[in-house]
Each structure stands twice: as structure tokens, then as C-alpha cells.
């Protein structure tokens, strides 16, 4: 029997369900140089960086480890580490 679907396949709740953490080769680490400017937030393809208490915080459930954040950071506050 085929799976059940909504009528016409209309979906209404964005599903934050596809966690990508297993794909990473590198992971970004925010250092104390972070000024909370938000440039990394603006450039993150996954939208998984937030400014929390004037510091950038990465949601590692969704980070794919591209390290664009490290590349664009104006304060050299993000380092790339090999994922364990």
C-alpha cells in the first residue's frame, strides 16, 4: 500500500528535520575574538548561526562545515577544525 499523503501534496509546516551534521568534514569554532557583528550570520548558507549574547553561536545540527563563516569573518574569530 502506498504511503499516505496530504491532499495534492500541500505541506504547511516547514520541517526542520533534515539534520546534516553527519556530513561534515570540518566544523567552525567561534573564538573569543568574536565581536558579534553578524557578518557570518548574513553569509551562512544554512542559516545556522545566531548572535546570542553578542557572540556568534553555531547550530551544529545543521552546519555542513563549509567554513564560509571563517572566510568572511572580519576579525579572524572563526577557526576550522577537522570534525571528529
Amino acid at each position, binding site marked *: 500500500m502506498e504511503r499516505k499523503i496530504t*491532499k495534492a501534496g500541500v505541506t504547511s509546516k516547514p520541517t526542520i528535520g533534515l539534520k546534516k551534521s553527519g556530513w561534515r568534514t570540518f566544523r567552525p569554532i567561534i573564538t573569543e575574538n568574536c565581536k558579534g557583528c553578524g557578518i557570518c550570520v548574513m553569509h551562512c548558507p544554512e542559516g545556522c548561526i545566531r548572535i546570542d549574547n553578542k557572540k556568534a553561536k553555531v547550530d551544529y545540527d545543521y552546519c555542513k562545515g563549509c567554513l564560509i563563516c571563517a572566510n568572511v569573518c572580519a576579525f579572524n574569530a572563526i577557526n576550522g577544525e577537522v570534525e571528529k
Partner: protein
Amino acid sequence: MTKKILEGSHAIAEAVKLCDPGVVAAYPITPQTHIIERLSEMVADGEFKTKFSRAESEHSAMSICLGAQASGIRTFTASASQGVALMHEVLYNVSGMRLPVVMAVANRSLASPLNIWCDWSDTFAERDSGWMQFYCESAQEAFDTIIQAYKIAENPNVSLPAMVCIDGFILSHVYEPVDIADKKLVRKFLPEYRGRKIDFDKPVTQGAWAGPDYFQAFKRDQHEAMRNAKDVIRRTNSEFKRISGRGYGSGLIETYNMESADYAIVTMGSLCGTIRHVIKEKNIRDMGLVKIKSFRPFPIGEIKKALNGVKSIGVLEKNISPGLGGALCYEIRGLTRKRSVSAFVGGLGGRDVKMEDILNVFDDIREEKRGLIWV
């Protein structure tokens, strides 16, 4: 109710105006042009308040209807022949997304060779698209079917788009008396569109892609919806008959002279009118007509029942599936077990099907003639 002498195309335009779609998008193609020209005049004169989009191709015309319907507005378009072929992929999109768009098709042959006259090749090529298909015999029927098509398509158990087909030139350009239903009556019969509407507070995603694990479920749902449509079509036909005095058989098929017939001819569209005329004129007793009005959903049960008592059958169609024969014939053959079904293909590209041709067809049916017979 007003009675007017109208072309089939203008009858359709009048019906569309009464159904009040909020968006009409179309591209001209012979022989549908009079439909959209008449609608344009109505819009220009303020008779019909709609957003009329002059699309730059049929593919875009159907896409505009898709976008508008998906946003929550009743829509209409019309096309024929090459235009229907051009919008082929969007037809699948619209029915896959379960959007009840209504399209009038003035049946015309597909090039090559280029030909502007009537046959069913354009809509037959779309018979698997998930669109309902209704074939009309007269301008009056076209008028009535447009109104009913919206009601059927928009039924929540159906939610499938519908094509209302009229033979190009034969019906689209010929004048007949048409009873124009009263606006109040139509409004009561067909209320405002109640399908899903764009809501900025409750955003939805439409047209997602589906992998192998989900796709088949979509198709199964579509098929079930088409099957549900049969009942909805019957009920809509009855309701319309109650309010207007006009019904078309069961809504799915009509029969003529079948009470005492030994033989039957099965066909669709304006050919039915010719056949009725021949049977009446020549006082033919042994031949009856089974007119298929709803080609999709295909009314298997009703056709079987109608053909129950006859010795042999003939199917006359304006389409050819090269390498097989007529597509309709094979659909009928599947229902008639051991009895002879003679196959007739004629009228292609507007080729005239005269009274003598019909009489010859009748003879061939009686003789249970084999092989594909070209009329």
C-alpha cells in the same frame, strides 16, 4: 432565461461570464479565437470583471491559470490543437497539483500536416493527463457543460481540472439557439470558489517534488478522485436538469433509440447530432446511439449496461492512434466481451461525415465488418 442565436464559441463565452472566473489567460488559436475575442469584448465593456491576461503562448496561458488557481481564484482558458499540445506538461502540473481549472477546447487536428479543422487528436493526446474530458454535441450543451464543469471540478472529493470539448468549426462557428441561464440561477448553482487561498499567516508549499517512496500515492489519489467524479457528475447533471430543464442522459453517457435497438453505434461530440438526425430521418429502428459525454472519467459501468442488449457494436471516432487504430474503439472493445465491435475512423482534419457515410457505417455494423474502416 433569455434565448439567443449564438455560435458555440460565444455560448461558451456567455457561460464563462456567468461562472465569473477571476483570472482568464489565453492565447489565440483557430478555431478557439472567437471564445477569447468575445470574452475580451465583455471585459472591455465592463460586462465581465476579470483579470484578462493575454499570454504569449499557451504554455504560459495554462501556467498563469495554474498560478492564479493555486492562489485561490477560479480561472478559465481555452485552446485547441497545437496549443493544447504546447501546454502538455503544464496540464500534468495542474492536475497533479489538483487545481480545478476549466479549459474549453475547440477540437482541432494536430500538425503535420497543418490543418485547422476538426478532429479529436488534440484532446485524445491528453487523455492520461488527469484532466476530466467532456464532449459536447451542441452549443447549448457546451454552455451547460461549462457551468457544470466548474461545479464538478471544484467539488472537494474531485479537485481535478476539466476540459470542455467542442468540435472545432462544426460547433464553435455554427449558430444555434441557446438558452442563456439567469445569473442568479447560476450563482446559486455554482457558488464562489472555496478552494485553498493564499494566506500570508498560514503559508503553504505547493508543487513539492516527490521521490519514489511517495510519487505513486499522488497518482493513486488522482485516480481515486477521477472515480469519485463519476458520481459527482451524475448528481450535478440531475441538479442542473432540475433548475434548467436540461439534462444530458446520466451526465456521463446519453442513449438514443436504444430501447429496441439490435445494434449500437458509440461515438462522441457533434457526430451524435448527425447520427440522431439520420436515425430519425430514415426511421431506423434497429440502430441506437450511445453517446459518451464524459470521456474521462470513462464510464465503464454505464457503457456496459447501455450496450447490454445489442448484437454488435460500432465505434466511430475522429482520431487515429497509428499502429493500433482508434483509441476509443479499443477502450470500448475491452467492455464488450465476445461481441463484434467494428472500428470506424473518420472525420479527421475536418473531413465531412455525411448522412450516406453514416448509413454505410450502420450497414457495416450489422454485417459485423472486421478490420479498420476509414470513413
